[in-house]
């Protein structure tokens, strides 16, 4: 992710000497694959850095580029071309996977702009020590109590219909909050796309906070789901 390139791409195609964009993976003139460049995910697709993205268009472009870049097309090419095809196809695939998903796209763009996003490199492991967002302290506290009680009940084999109802309600509540965050993210994304440098900064900071909040809420919903799924069984 976000490779810091130590080798710079050539300014000319190695095969036909045509002038190249710094980030070109293919020569626009002779279609030859180029050495791995430091292209970012937007550049791979020749896109401006924008959060609003036409995904069907992205898919078509992904298929078009795959046809040209994929290692299957280079089974009989030189070892160099095979290596570049592999590296560039990996980049293309990583880029497509990231950009087609609105959340990953946002996280990636924020990272490109230099903002540190919470869970980077921490994998999918839970971070139990994370502070809940200030406005949710009370609800989260109550939810955690209920979850604890529910787990205890399950261990003892007891049933508590009222608790079950409360938890189901809480889940609906938090899922609603999650949807709200997604709406806010979309709105801030639009501001980022349209705004000047100052507006972009502001939107980026709000999005970073929203992503943090979203991650927290998602983990909560996951915890509730875990407990509720066990309850059904």
């Amino acid at each position, binding site marked *: *992710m*976000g*490779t*810091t390139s*130590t080798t710079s791409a050539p300014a000319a195609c190695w095969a036909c000497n045509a002038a190249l964009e710094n980030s070109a993976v293919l020569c626009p003139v002779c279609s030859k694959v180029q050495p791995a460049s430091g292209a970012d995910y937007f550049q791979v697709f020749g896109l401006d850095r924008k959060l609003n993205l036409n995904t069907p268009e992205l898919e078509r472009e992904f*298929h078009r580029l*795959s*046809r040209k870049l*994929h*290692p*299957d*097309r280079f*089974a*009989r*090419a*030189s*070892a160099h071309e095979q290596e570049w095809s*592999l*590296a560039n*196809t*990996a*980049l293309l*695939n*990583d880029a*497509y*996977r990231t950009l087609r998903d609105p959340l990953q796209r946002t996280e990636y763009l924020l990272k490109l702009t230099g903002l540190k996003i919470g869970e980077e*490199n*921490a*994998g*999918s*492991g839970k971070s139990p020590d994370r502070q809940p967002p200030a406005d949710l302290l009370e609800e989260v506290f109550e939810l955690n109590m209920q979850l604890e009680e529910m787990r205890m009940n399950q261990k003892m084999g007891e049933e508590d219909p009222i608790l079950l109802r409360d938890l189901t309600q809480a889940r609906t509540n938090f899922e609603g909050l999650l949807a709200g965050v997604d709406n806010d993210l979309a709105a801030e994304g639009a501001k980022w796309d349209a705004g000047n440098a100052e507006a972009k900064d502001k939107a980026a900071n709000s999005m970073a906070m929203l992503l943090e909040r979203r991650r927290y809420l998602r983990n909560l919903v996951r915890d509730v789901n875990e407990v509720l799924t066990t309850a059904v069984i």
Partner: protein
Amino acid sequence: MPEEQPKDRVVGIDLGTTNSLVAYMEGDTPVVIPGVDGSNLVPSIVALDVVDPNAESTKPTVTVGNAASRSLIENPERAIYSVKRLMGRGLEDVEEELKLFPFRLADDIQSGEVLRIRLGDLHFTPPEISAYILRQLKRNAERYFGAAVTKAVITVPAYFNDAQRQATRDAGRMAGLDVLRLVNEPTAAALAYGLDRAKEGYREGSTVAVYDLGGGTFDVSILKLNDGIFEVIATNGDTHLGGDDIDNLLLAVALDEIKSDFGVDLRPHADAIQALRKAVIEAKITLSSQPVATLDIELPNNQRYQREIPREVYEQLIQSVLERTAGPCKQALADAGVTPDQIEELVLVGGSTRIPAVRKLVDDLFQLSARGKKPHTELNPDEVVALGAAVQASILAGSSKTTDELLLLDVTPLSLGIEALGGVVARIIQRNSTIPASATEHFTTGVDGQTNVAIHVLQGERELAKDCRSLARFDLKGIPPMTAGLPRIEVKFLIDANGILQVTAREQRSGLEAAIEVKPTYGLTDEQVETMILDSFDNAETDFEARQLIEARLDAENILDKVAKAPASPAWQMISEAEIAAIDAAVAHLKAVAQGNDLAAIRTASTALDQATRNLAEKMMETAVSGAMRGKTMQTASDDLGEAVNAPHPFAPAEFK
């Protein structure tokens, strides 16, 4: 790399648990290449030949395929089947298998070591055994083309992990094959169907599911088809679930019944178990088309175990095995973000999908008949994977216009992660990511002056490292001594188009390429693979001789068989005592030399017997068929006779009236 040569054929190989096949693209149609015996399927059975202790050459030779299947019963300690189950696995992975399969492992294997299998007094790794199968397929193709074959596409179960894939690639190398690509079996099947239906075409943008229940593995893949692009969206499976499990279940039931009804415990008798296994497999196959099958086995105490198996009983018995395929199907659908009713085409692959109960389960899972749909079974489920491999081979070779516009985009079946503090797994590439896929991670040191960093790479979906599959431990060495936390080591993980991991590392402050020492958890090192290739090159000559020897023995058996039947013929009365004595002597001589390893002697003795029976053969012809057919030998006379009594020659030209 040499420029494209017309002779540079790339074949497609399905290296199966039960059967293996080789196919290639003939014009714009993939076809399976038959073996010497005319059969398309080469049973994945390898038997170490019995070598005469007095013979000069003591080098081991093996027999593969149908010819080896007899050894399973006659010399079970020298034969192995279903070796695919052991590919890329360690001792602790195979405990369950060992209870069910007659795999005899070397006694001194340590945990974490590559397995070694005992055949006779020798040891072989699973890739070596597989290499023998691949070499047989390579030979079949070479015989068919009359030219060397060195390049291949080999299929693997989609759910194979890195170690299993590497083991397969190693096997290819040992067999003298340049493995251009490992292709996932269900994807290959989709490709074969896609090509087959190119004229009508799958509907543009249609969603296809492939349900592949083979001899030893189960895969399910969901694909999207778009203008020649076969894009896998999600895959799931179980690399230890297949027809083998059904066989073992039936076998266990039969063994228990025999023990309780007759007081005979067959379990210690490897040969009896193999004979019984053969019988239950036949019963299983019968039950796919008949309502009832019968087991009829002679026990060592001359009693007979006779047992009727009605299909309902059979289906109840195997239900638990079949149901294990449901979970992976549901997971694949969920990962692909589609519901069962969104699957427009369903392809059935693998011999086990012939079982009616499997078809019913699939029909329920994907709501097929409820939606007025039928699964695709037009292509032979045993051959479709090999056909698809041939299509992929053609794509790579660029040898056919038909495949020019086709492209496979496959995924990695399992998430890739690294062990983080506390033994948890930090996932760096998610399962179902399109491959090639990459991830870059940064590492640093924890102690001042530290020059090594160890990275533990894992594959799997569990949260804890101990529950995932350990792929390898990488040791980053030669980090310049610096204050703790200062080095910045960039490690790039790349899963290539074969689904195999490559790792490179660089210390960014010094710009030094860090040396990586890889300890594959269950793999062979490059050096080990090299020696195994050399071994088989050393043996190439003896292998060839052994093959000729086997063929000569078969010829001898053939002619002895025919001569043995001759006294029943009226012609026998028409030849002289001296001739009979000469024939008897020739027979005795041939029988004697056929036991030995002298190829020339066997051939000479066969020819001598053929000559000695020349007159007899002519007389047999004369008595059986009107009109003299002179100059026939025993061999041909007998052949002609057989045809004369049975049916017209199958290749006789059609008669037009």
